[in-house]
């Protein structure tokens, strides 16, 4: 099973029963799998007229009570940005899968890229915080898709799966384990009587319980700045309150959200930091470096957003160098550079896309770094 | 300028006793109620509300057919017909 298909299976296992999408290489197989599977389990597969419509349809479906997903790649991801913002503003749980290809523009549609990592964080206008996770195998495409739904339901935020063509199109054995109901998180339901329900009145955890359409709450939601009743309030005071909550509900829960894989970091002088397909290449290079006696380690970012600032800062105090291979011209490396605060060097190993790094290139960089 | 007017289902409503009520805070003085009342029950006055909008007044409650046109046409949900309960309050 390839990564795209595994992602679809993960969604089904997570309870996703609504998929809206628009075909695009290399994400199409997610949609294709969903179109086969959903009618069998009584879910809805709809192919919308474009990615904008797809994004909005999953928001609507989420407000109808469904766990909903869409999948796309760069060009479609760009088109989804405006309404990703709506999802954030309405606090709508949903999952958006980006199987990255090499860009910009139409670029290399069938070949791998990791050029949308910063876009995942900053691609929509205005202030927000988002969750983005990056699988590196078909098995993780399955399991992290479940994680994505869980985070999305828990924090009422769209969650991005920032995969790439290599992982999406890679075939490996995928164990589709039955997921226990208690391992699936569901959005909080309102306990207030319908008359008193305020759609944006948060609990202590900053997250408001979510009513869905058709249950008599007669609630209102809007993409305008709003108060706890969901009513538009056109003041900087309302904006301040709302923005801080939307951002803080993610930032304050960093520890719950962030997933990292750490390999040989305990004594590492050189930390290779990578994600997605690149992490599997980096793994090989780190192995080889260790074989040569170099104290190299791998920090694999599973969660890229919110960014694991603290862990980077800690490692910066320990290591001399971060080596950052990515299939772009420097994106996550900038964040690492920022968090390292000059305490460790950051060495970017850019690859412009259409392929992955050769492990030798990473190894060479590790070697060089180890000499400093 | 008075133009052709369509009295809305006058038949059903004409007999019910009713009162026209104007919410002065909501009214924005567009003049629709006065202009389109088929019986000329209302007229725009010189009175202005707190936002400076001129207000309509009821000229003659007795002419009212309770057709509901003013209520339906008011853009501001600012005028309505209160049907009297049979036998009064």
């Amino acid at each position, binding site marked *: 099973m390839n990564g795209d298909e595994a992602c679809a299976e993960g969604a089904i296992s997570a309870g996703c029963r609504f998929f809206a999408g628009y075909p695009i290489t290399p994400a199409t197989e997610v949609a294709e799998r969903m179109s086969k599977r959903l009618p069998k389990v009584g879910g809805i597969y709809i192919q919308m007229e474009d990615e904008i419509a797809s994004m909005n349809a999953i928001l609507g479906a989420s407000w109808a009570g469904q766990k909903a997903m869409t999948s796309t790649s760069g060009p479609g991801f760009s088109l989804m940005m405006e309404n990703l913002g709506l999802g954030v503003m309405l606090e709508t749980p949903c999952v958006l899968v980006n199987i990255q290809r090499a860009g910009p523009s139409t670029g290399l549609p069938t070949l791998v890229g990791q050029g949308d990592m910063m876009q995942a964080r900053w691609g929509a206008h205005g202030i927000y915080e988002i969750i983005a996770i990056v699988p590196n195998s078909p098995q993780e495409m399955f399991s992290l898709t479940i994680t994505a739904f869980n985070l999305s339901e828990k924090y009422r935020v769209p969650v991005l799966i920032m995969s790439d063509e290599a992982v999406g199109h890679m075939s490996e054995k995928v164990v589709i384990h039955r997921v226990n109901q208690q391992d699936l998180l569901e959005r909080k339901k309102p306990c207030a009587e319908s008359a008193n329900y305020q759609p944006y009145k948060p609990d202590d955890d900053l997250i408001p319980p979510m009513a869905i359409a058709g249950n008599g709450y007669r609630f209102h939601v809007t993409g305008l700045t709003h108060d706890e009743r969901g009513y538009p309030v056109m003041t900087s005071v309302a904006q301040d309150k709302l923005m801080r909550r939307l951002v803080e509900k993610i930032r304050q829960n960093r520890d719950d959200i962030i997933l990292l894989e750490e390999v040989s970091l305990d004594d590492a002088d050189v930390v290779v930091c990578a994600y997605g397909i690149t992490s*599997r290449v980096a793994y090989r290079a780190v192995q080889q470096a260790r074989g040569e006696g170099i104290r190299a380690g791998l920090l694999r970012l599973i969660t890229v957003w919110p960014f694991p600032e603290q862990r980077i800062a800690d490692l910066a105090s320990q290591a001399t160098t971060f080596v950052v291979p990515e299939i772009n011209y420097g994106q996550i490396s900038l964040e690492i550079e920022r968090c390292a605060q000059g305490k460790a060097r950051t060495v970017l190993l850019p690859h412009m896309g259409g392929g992955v790094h050769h492990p030798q290139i990473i190894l060479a960089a590790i070697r060089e770094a180890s000499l400093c | 300028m008075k133009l052709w007017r369509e009295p809305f289902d006058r038949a059903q409503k004409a007999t019910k006793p009713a009162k026209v009520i104007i919410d002065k805070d909501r009214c924005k003085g567009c003049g629709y109620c006065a202009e389109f009342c088929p019986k000329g029950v209302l007229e725009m006055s010189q009175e202005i509300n707190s936002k400076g909008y001129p207000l309509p007044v009821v000229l003659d409650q007795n002419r009212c057919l309770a057709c509901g046109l003013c209520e339906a046409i008011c853009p501001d949900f600012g005028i309505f017909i209160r049907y009297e309960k049979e036998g009064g309050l």
Partner: protein
Amino acid sequence: MDKDSDSRFEIRIAGFGGQGVILSGQIMGKAASIYDKGFATMTQSYGPEARGGSCAAEVVISQNPIDYPYVTSPQVVVILAQEAYTNYGRNPSTDTLVIIDPDLVNPDPFQTPPPLSVPATRMAQEMGRTVVANIIVLGFLSAVSNLVSVEALRKAVLASVPEGTGEFNLKAFDLGRTYGLEQERRNTVGGK
């Protein structure tokens, strides 16, 4: 960490779109990982063409989980198009087994050892359905190498082809295998 290197085998299948290159790779992977209970990764590269563009599948097979999923020094290379031959088939390392379809690839006459040949496209055409050429190749491969077990391969073929075409495909597989077994020079690779 360095778990997979000793038991690792790499296969590259390269041709053009429409030949079933990717499917062959998937069948190999499925055979190794599901039916032979090992691990396998298949990665692919292809162009924008639905048909006719160059296209390659890389399969890595191991007894241990596979970290680095790409082929760097393949034990077997299957070449089904001239362009692919130029890129991958002309200068193999000495212990690489090269298999070509001689109707589609004109090998360098001085290449040593000369590549193995299986005229799979023509054989498939003779069977009446060109689409099974890739399965013929797999059968051939099962004869000249033992990276994966024949049984696993047969099961994987059955599990991967469209419903109702299983038998026909197995026939193609056997045809290729028989052809392979008949070939004089048996070049078995993979120590399993």
